[in-house]
């Protein structure tokens, strides 16, 4: 009986967390639109900004990562870090989408012409 009671509260917690992740996913992704620019940041500071409309290949952060922009999509094609997680994150084009390279403290973010929810959070 005791074990059964415990399991019930465990299930409540699990259900609540799954629900919360679903709600957050919807909230954060709601109203997403095609972005116009990609912003490259190192340590949270902007270092480069490129238009998604112009194709090109850009070495970032002294060549630690290679940014490719093609047909309105941006992705990292190369990285000098051991795990290559940023390369695996694939192509981004919606406003607010971000590719993160933790070892090089680098982020590539899609931004649009007008402000989105995240800009409000930054303040």
């Amino acid at each position, binding site marked *: 009986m005791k074990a059964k009671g415990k399991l019930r509260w465990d299930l409540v917690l699990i259900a609540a967390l799954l629900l919360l992740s679903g709600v957050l996913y919807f909230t954060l992704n709601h109203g997403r639109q095609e972005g116009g620019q990609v912003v490259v940041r190192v340590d949270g500071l902007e270092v480069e900004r490129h238009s998604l409309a112009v194709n090109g290949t850009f070495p970032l952060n002294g060549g630690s990562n290679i940014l490719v922009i093609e047909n309105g999509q941006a992705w990292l094609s190369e990285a000098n870090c051991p795990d290559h*997680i940023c390369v695996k994150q694939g192509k981004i084009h919606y406003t607010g989408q971000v590719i993160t390279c933790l070892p090089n403290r680098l982020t590539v973010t899609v931004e649009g012409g007008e402000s989105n929810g995240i800009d409000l959070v930054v303040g």
Partner: protein
Amino acid sequence: MKTKKITVMAMCIALAMILSYVESQIPSPGIPGVKLGLANLAVIFALYKLGWKEAAGISLLRVLLVSLLFGHVASLMYSAAGAALSLLGMILLRRIPQFGCVAVSVTGGVLHNIGQILMAWALMGSNVIYYLPVLLFSGTVAGVVIGIVAALLIKRIKI
């Protein structure tokens, strides 16, 4: 501290380190922070069998040793933030009698990911918040799996 307790603690740390290494060999799904958290097995085991101080010691030593051996400075900062928050949550939840081992594990998994996001936020800015829903989900699922295994271990292994 009794010799037996020291020995069990040492074994838990060794086990946590090996589990961290095993996990590092599993290919990443491509989202930073999504992982199983195998090493948390040893921490949860210690939390139930030895006590919260011992579990805290095992977790923090594990993070330090694994980062020195297999990682880099950046990984130490993320791991430490995740482990500290995760540990705090698990210790608190362990004290609530209504919750079982799976709830403790799920809390640990989710808070580990939240700790890492907060560290990433501090280092790289608020854009990383977009990872939160995915990491919340993955932390919950991983926590359930680890919690079920930990419950079996706690039941079967006598120390």
